[in-house]
């Protein structure tokens, strides 16, 4: 019988401090419990594309047994980072962290094709960190959509034929929703007495353009519940996409700017740093880890991270008012991976939905299985993403729901694309929603009934 011997650490393979932690790699006892939870293992049917397999590959690199070949890199690239494996793992292997660390090393090693690197730098470093450029891009998108160009592009299918990647982006692009959200708007609404707390809203990079109403609803809902909400204007993109992709330097730069924007004074901190996008929320909660080696920001990052609350989480924490307005609708709730698996928030969104009079929650099979959006995955790995989405839509359409509700803009865009493609009977509302919008609607309907 051959018995495993301890792996030597191959010091030469890792270039940065962000390398996968050897002790964390060692936590995996390869029990295999993660396999069936993994969407890519389910889809591709090979263990190289399973969480256990990818960890073995990381260990193989660490011990010098294997080369970092393009094939190995592909297995890392094909990971959705949905972290369903973390929920399944009895050893609590921090897989998401290990994968981010591996991607950070891949970034440092320049493992990507040249074209991908250039596009990354243009978009992720040149566009996302700058709110004003994002807004310009938003106007551009709006012109494209409102002049009917998008409709022509989609109808003719020319883009699909000549630039399928661009066609994917087009299909998943949000409807640029004017008026875009302005951070100053939050100041205009103040709670009537008594004020129970003070929150700072993270408005993010894309939400103000694509889902401004979600932000407006968030501010109204918390204001009504006695929380004064502000949205610091100096804030920038949270950097989640950068960290997931391995561009940790860019992620750290953004994190520092946000820490300065949200917690300028250590003796005057908001009670909560509120976020209504699950992917951003889970990353914001990791700021302490991200800046653990930065002596100037380490402590402030930990303080920041400890105050981050997902909107559902905070609503339940403060005990929200029961809404009274009737919404007679059946919805199904898709757990955003970064809310359920990464932040372990599962009950709160359902509690919010169930509080709404007339609303029925029809649960789908495996509601916490990824929809295939996964940040920019839906564009970069569009084939796998589409198959994962197709399975998700089967489960969605098997419910009696008229609308999908979820907790992250990426998931909303992906599910909207899914509804457009798979809901042949047109039984569902074309746009998915966020629980906070439904709660806001119910509050407002309740007010109308009371004072006609």
């Amino acid at each position, binding site marked *: 019988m051959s018995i495993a011997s301890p792996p030597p650490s191959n010091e030469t393979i890792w270039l940065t401090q962000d390398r996968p932690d050897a002790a964390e790699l060692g936590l995996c006892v390869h029990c295999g419990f993660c396999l069936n939870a993994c969407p890519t293992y389910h889809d591709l049917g090979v263990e190289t594309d399973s969480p256990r397999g990818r960890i073995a590959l990381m260990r193989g690199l660490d011990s010098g047994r294997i080369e970092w070949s393009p*094939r190995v890199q592909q297995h890392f690239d094909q990971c959705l980072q949905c972290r369903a494996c973390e929920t399944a793992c009895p050893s*609590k292997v921090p897989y998401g962290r290990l994968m981010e660390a591996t991607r950070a090393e891949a970034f440092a090693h320049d493992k990507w094709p040249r074209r991908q690197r250039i596009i990354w730098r243009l978009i992720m470093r040149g566009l996302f960190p700058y709110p004003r450029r994002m807004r310009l891009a938003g106007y551009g998108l709006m012109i494209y959509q409102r002049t009917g160009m998008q409709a022509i592009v989609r109808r003719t299918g020319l883009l699909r034929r000549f630039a399928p990647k661009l066609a994917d982006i087009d299909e998943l692009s949000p409807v640029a929703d004017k008026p875009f959200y302005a951070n100053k708007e939050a100041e205009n609404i103040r709670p009537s007495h008594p004020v129970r707390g003070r929150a700072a809203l993270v408005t993010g990079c894309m939400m103000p353009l694509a889902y401004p109403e979600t932000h407006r609803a968030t501010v109204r809902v918390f204001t009504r519940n006695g929380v004064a909400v502000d949205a610091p204007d100096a804030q920038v993109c949270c950097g989640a996409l950068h960290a997931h992709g391995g561009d940790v330097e860019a992620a750290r730069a953004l994190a520092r700017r946000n820490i300065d924007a949200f917690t300028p004074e250590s003796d005057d901190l908001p009670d909560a740093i509120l976020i209504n996008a699950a992917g951003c929320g889970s990353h914001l909660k990791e700021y302490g880890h991200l800046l653990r080696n930065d002596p100037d920001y380490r402590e402030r990052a930990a303080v920041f991270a400890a105050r981050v609350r997902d909107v559902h989480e905070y609503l339940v924490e403060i005990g929200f008012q029961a809404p009274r307005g009737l919404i007679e609708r059946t919805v199904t709730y898709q757990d955003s991976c970064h809310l359920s698996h990464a932040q372990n928030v599962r009950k709160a969104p359902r509690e919010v939905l169930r509080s709404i009079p007339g609303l029925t929650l029809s649960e789908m099979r495996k509601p916490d299985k990824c929809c295939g959006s996964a940040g920019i995955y839906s564009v970069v790995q569009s084939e796998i993403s589409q198959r994962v989405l197709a399975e998700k839509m089967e489960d969605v359409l098997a419910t009696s729901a008229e609308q999908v509700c979820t907790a992250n803009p990426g998931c909303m865009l992906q599910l909207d694309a899914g509804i457009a493609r798979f809901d042949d009977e047109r039984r569902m509302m074309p746009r998915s929603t966020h629980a906070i919008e439904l709660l806001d609607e119910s509050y407002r309907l309740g007010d109308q009934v009371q004072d006609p």
Partner: protein
Amino acid sequence: MKTSTPMVQALIDAIGEQAVVWHDDDLLVYEYDGTIDRGNPDVIALPANTDDVVNLIKVANKYDAPVTPRGAGTGLSGGALAVKGGVIIGMNRMRNILNVDAENKTALVQPGVVNLDLGAEAERHGLAYAPDPSSQRACTIGGNVAENAGGPHTLAWGTTTNHVLALELVTADGEVQWIGHETRDEPGYDLVGCVVGSEGTVGIVTQVLVRLVPRPTAVRTMLAVYDSVRQASNAVSAVVASGIVPAALEMIDKMTIAAVEPVLNTGFPLDAEAVLLVEVDGPESQVEAEGARVEGILNRFEPREVRSATDPEEREHLWAGRKGAIGALGQIMPNYYLLDGVVPRTKLPDVLDGVYEIAERYRLPVANMFHAGDGNLHPCLLFDELEPGATERVLDAGGEIMRLCVEAGGAITGEHGVGLEKRDYLPWIFTEADMDTMKSLRAAFGPTENFNPCKIFPKGHGCGEAGHQHAQHQIAKFGPKAFV
């Protein structure tokens, strides 16, 4: 870079490029299962249907290559390891539930179906698939059939062999045979019984007709907390002796609680020496009556507390603590060696004492979480492979514990199979003549020498030192510390 071999090419021709994995770095992830052993396959074949299996077996035969079937690789006896190299047949892509016949309470499934997915499908028809190994979230029906898997609920329902009615088998000759019948009893030899638990040594199972059972209308799960292991094991004996057959009767000791509790928050008290998890199910009235009787018996042994889960969520929570126990041990030490012995239930207290004594003598922490009602022990020795000599100490201690079980009138496996890990213990319970008889049974299925070699039968029985040599070869290739 390695170029493909003629066999790899032939496999690609037979079942397609997407179904063959052969690069060195990719093979790395197929060298382990849930144990501490390793085996190095030359190639992985991932069939999509029975025809693919037939075709790839023909290729393997042509090149005289060993074949090792693999489901999810969650096994705990090294059954899915390609010890002699050759072809691993990954059955995970054959994962369709082909039919559920609710009226006759059967389901026809492919071997790659995950145990819990079958359970969920059965539930939609008001039925259940009874065998529930702790790895049921990931393990496959094919693997369950190969190892005759059990689980907490086998106390009342029996192991996998009691739930397989018929199966489709691809033999070593590459022929497809249906064995068994959808009726419960078939005239003639019980061939299905021969295949279930044969650990992939007689052929490849490509379809399984399983029996489903009615879902109990009521369930009561009790947690009893004790200040000594002996009290807890005496309570187990008393419950069994009372004539009541609980659906499950599990024991979890202090070390296991220490691993599980901080991660899963199951509510097991950290300072208890042992807790029992007892479940009764059936019609409402029966559950009420039996539950009360069981509670009375548990209370006779001075528990600190006996409480019942009041809702399904609480029940699931308690079970999560049991079923997640093995993986959670990674929190205490990086490696574990999980044993699987069976003893007569009356011997439980003495054998458990012996297990703790052996572990102490070898300076190894031991965690026990096991199917007490069946007398099926799972001592889990914890160690750190980085510590020089630790692995050898663990293997020696494991051998002693196995010996202890055999001497108490028990056996070397309850539900994990003999596999690679315990094949050398087989002579402890069988004579040479017994083993020869088993081998002639295996031979009756055809030229099966290449089917999962080096499993079940001890060294020198058609396998020799080959597995070990293969490992030596790998060590020579990558250096002594190169195993992941």
